[in-house]
């Protein structure tokens, strides 16, 4: 269980870079008046980010992932509990990977 100094420095730099992104966000809206259009725009931020995370990853991984994402979306729109939706997604991707 040894820690090399150079490695520790690299990890520290990576940790600071990451914490910087997380901490920086807290100050991003500090001087923004969150009303009206700004508010509507910020309300759209979480779903827009989620969509941007999901789409490229399910489209570029393979056909099984793309189809499984569609099945998962249907389960989600039916308002199934989250755990059930995740299980539906995982089971469909396993089956589809086997079939396709």
């Amino acid at each position, binding site marked *: 269980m040894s820690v090399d100094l150079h490695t520790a420095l690299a990890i520290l730099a990576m940790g600071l870079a990451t914490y910087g*992104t997380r901490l920086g966000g807290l100050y*991003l809206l500090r001087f923004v008046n*969150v009303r009206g259009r700004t508010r509507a725009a910020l309300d759209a931020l979480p*779903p*827009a980010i989620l969509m941007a995370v999901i789409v490229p990853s399910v489209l570029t991984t393979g056909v099984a992932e793309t189809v499984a994402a569609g099945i998962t979306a249907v389960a989600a729109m039916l308002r199934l509990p989250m755990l059930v939706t995740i299980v539906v997604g995982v089971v469909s991707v396993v089956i589809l990977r086997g079939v396709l």
Partner: protein
Amino acid sequence: MAFRDFRLGVVDMLPLLIAFVPIGALWGALAAGKGLSPAEAGLMSAGVFAGASQFVAVELWHDPAPILLLAFTVFIVNVRHFLMSASLSRHMGAFPKGTRGIAVYFMCDEAWAMAERRALTQELTLAYYLGLALSAYFTWLFSSLAGAVFGAQFGDPAAYGIDFAFSAMFIAILAGFWKGPRTGAVLGASALAAALAKLFVPGVWYIVIGGLAGVAVAAALYEEEAVAA
């Protein structure tokens, strides 16, 4: 009250924690394969705590570690956290003074998404948030340590579809944000921009680009409505 909220956060996070274990172990095994000691792998999971960027870092890793390249690459991969914590800061009104800066240290994509989901229906408490974030943090830390020590005992997470659990979870959470056709326009813009960015922009800028495209459309549609009214 606080403990109940904390426990609720852990319980809500549980399906994701299960998925964290094999992926953390896989990362730990890859890190060990690159010559990192278990202590160093654990230090990275504790100090960086960002799965995607840790996989990228291990891929770039060689001895001696290219410090600036690693820090810069990890920063770029995690730029999305600016937007995530900015968005989450709007729901931290109930957090005691001075706790926000510490709270965001433990923010991963999954805890962020679950916290945003919670804030849709009720006030986000620090205890609930910590239930999400800390359970994710320690699950990730211990599973990556286990992977570094014992190797990837669970095999390839893709074999069980575990890797897809995160996409499925994001899709499930996304459905809760649906508020009608305008959400459709936001999501369409985000999806299109993210897909194009993925194709034509190197690196992982696509998340930020897609997110901002969705925000731009929301802002534009708001104006249209105000003019019509």
